[in-house]
């Protein structure tokens, strides 16, 4: 189902439809393309694929072959266009054709020097762009050759094969991209693999106009780009809530019993087991799993614990509601239990009535249209794009560990009498340090997705934070651990000097919901104010920008001695005697990288 594309005319028709609609609230994305080929025919595909994701594409195509010419001039048409996203698309056919056509004639050193030259070209290009623009860059990697010169023997050449060299170049591009802020890969080798190599090209169009792609390749390229752009601009979902009967196994456990449900190595049970493997892979990437099922809890949990082929065992599930309550109510309860918003949820249930109920009663939840046949479940889940992300931080992959540590913390709380006792008994250590290149991606991620404890809810892109830091702003991040485990980097503050030199303002001050109610925000503020004092600052200003989601921090400024000078605008006099102190139950390590 996922690789059915519209025809060229259908794309054109949909493009005209989108153009005629009033879409004022839609997020507009100006996309600038620099390429060694003609890419203009991509425009309708791009408009439609972004349109399908509630984004509005405004493409601009540089003259083909003029990449450095556009990148190296501050006043080029390319920078004047003011791109929100920059796409760089170079092909080996144009930049190193010997690697494609004369590969067999090249000595090892010649291949090596060509490869080095290509990597250098990419590195120089990214550096040139970054000096002049902070917009995210998406760079296409290389497709496998249509016809490997060694023919069927190519794979036998091992490290000297053409295929192996292309893979190495693609790994090189990815490595170089990761060294620059906000630089992502358009996996063109995968785009053509999905469409099929022979079906991806149109040699006639290329010879007439230097536009090498078939309609399906244009469609799939636009779809990949749209998913990447969406993942960059829309905060990603954190939790997948799943039904059990006919979703994670075939049949109804209440009727069929644990022996009767379909789950195992043979049809149809293997379809459900395969689906569970994909779900588990999402958990590995940091997505929380929840179960929402209408069942007798004991019966369902028995199957989840004891069925030999059930993979998503209860200890892998962050929260569950197995009862006869309606699923919207259950989802709200799970959201409260996990301390995340309903807009972080994706709901997967084979029953259209349940889906409709959740859509009506929890419109923030993304509800996947589940296909009738279970062999299509994995595609429906993974092609939904709800869990797409372009950059994965280490913190993402550890997220599930934090939550299961948290369950043990809550059990521990029941054995202590006061909150201070409890906090002391957690043996917390806070490491405070200035933001570095290592911690910047995680800080930017927190900025993009923290809704609750966020004083200003200013969505500042990574590149802008980086720019502020290099212009002298102070960025502090806080890592927290306790006796149950490491919570990771959970708080971030950014402060800049104002026009009056001894006044500093808080641009960003936020705390991940994972670390609420532990007074670590006090430690962050204390550390920030110490550093501002050292730099000669005497007053700290901050706005509180109320949103429907950030009431939890409404009292933060007054509780820490700030005075309101106008509505939601606050000031704190900093001096050696100010009342800010590190909480005594917290071990503080400063400048600990």
């Amino acid at each position, binding site marked *: 189902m996922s690789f059915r594309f519209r025809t*060229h*005319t259908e794309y*054109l*028709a949909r493009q005209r439809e989108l153009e005629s609609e009033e879409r004022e609230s839609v997020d507009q994305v100006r996309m600038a393309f620099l390429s060694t080929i003609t890419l*203009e*025919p991509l425009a309708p595909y791009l408009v439609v694929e972004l349109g399908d994701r509630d984004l509005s594409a405004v493409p601009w195509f540089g003259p083909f072959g003029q990449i450095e010419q556009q990148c190296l001039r501050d006043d080029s048409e390319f920078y004047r266009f003011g791109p929100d996203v920059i796409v760089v698309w170079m092909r080996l056919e144009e930049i190193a054709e010997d690697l494609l056509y004369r590969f067999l004639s090249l000595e090892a050193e010649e291949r090596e020097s060509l490869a080095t030259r290509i990597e250098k070209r990419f590195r120089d290009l990214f550096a040139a762009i970054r000096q002049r623009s902070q917009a995210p860059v998406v760079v296409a990697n290389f497709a496998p050759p249509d016809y490997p010169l060694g023919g069927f023997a190519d794979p036998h050449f091992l490290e000297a094969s053409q295929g192996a060299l292309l893979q190495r170049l693609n790994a090189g591009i990815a490595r170089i991209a990761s060294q620059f802020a906000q630089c992502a890969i358009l996996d063109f080798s995968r785009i053509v693999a999905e469409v099929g190599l022979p079906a991806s090209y149109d040699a*006639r169009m290329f010879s*007439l*106009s230097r536009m090498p792609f078939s*309609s399906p390749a244009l469609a799939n390229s636009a779809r990949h780009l749209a998913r990447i752009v969406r993942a960059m601009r829309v905060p990603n979902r954190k939790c997948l809530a799943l039904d059990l009967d006919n979703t994670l196994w075939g049949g109804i456990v209440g009727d069929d019993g644990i022996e009767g449900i379909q789950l195992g190595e043979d049809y149809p049970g293997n379809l459900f087991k395969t689906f569970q493997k994909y779900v588990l892979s999402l958990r590995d990437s940091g997505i929380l799993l929840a179960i929402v099922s209408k069942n007798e809890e004991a019966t369902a949990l028995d199957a989840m614990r004891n069925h030999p082929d059930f993979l998503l065992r209860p200890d892998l599930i962050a929260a569950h509601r197995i009862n006869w309550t309606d699923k919207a109510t259950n989802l709200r309860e799970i959201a409260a239990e996990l301390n995340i918003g309903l807009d972080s949820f994706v709901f997967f249930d084979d029953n259209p009535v349940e889906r409709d109920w959740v859509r009506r009663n929890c419109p923030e939840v993304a509800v996947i249209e589940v296909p009738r046949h279970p062999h299509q479940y994995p595609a429906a889940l993974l092609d939904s794009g709800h869990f797409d992300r372009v950059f994965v931080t280490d913190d993402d992959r550890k997220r599930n560990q934090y939550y299961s540590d948290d369950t043990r913390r809550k059990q521990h709380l029941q054995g202590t009498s006061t909150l201070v006792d409890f906090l002391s008994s957690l043996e917390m250590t806070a490491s405070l340090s200035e933001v570095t290149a290592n911690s910047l991606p995680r800080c930017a991620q927190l900025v993009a997705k923290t809704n609750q404890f966020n004083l200003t809810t200013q969505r500042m892109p990574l590149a802008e934070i980086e720019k502020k830091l290099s212009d002298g702003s102070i960025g502090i991040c806080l890592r927290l651990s306790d006796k149950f485990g490491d919570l990771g980097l959970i708080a971030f503050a950014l402060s800049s000097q104002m026009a009056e030199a001894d006044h500093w303002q808080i641009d960003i001050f936020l705390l991940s919901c994972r670390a609420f109610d532990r007074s670590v925000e006090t430690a962050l503020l204390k550390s920030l104010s110490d550093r501002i004092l050292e730099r000669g600052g005497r007053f700290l200003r901050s706005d509180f920008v109320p949103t429907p989601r950030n009431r939890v921090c409404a009292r933060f400024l007054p509780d820490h001695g700030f005075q309101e000078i106008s509505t939601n605008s606050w000031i704190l006099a900093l001096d050696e005697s100010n009342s800010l102190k590190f909480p005594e139950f917290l071990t503080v390590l400063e400048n600990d990288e």
Partner: protein
Amino acid sequence: MNDLLEKIRQLMALTLGVPPDSITDSTSTETLSEWTSLQHLNLIMAIESEFGVFIPPDTTLELTSVAKIVEFLESNPT
């Protein structure tokens, strides 16, 4: 013939983003400024996708007027 001409007018209007009324059987790349060389590619892809035909490279270069497109499609029915 009239049906075919009408279909082509609709398709060209869609592709080039112009009103169907602005396209007649005497329209050509000379008379319609929106019919640029890049839009010509777009149009060729649209004709192929809509009529299920293959347009050889030489023909691609020759189909520069509505009359020629009609003639080509009449002699190469799907």
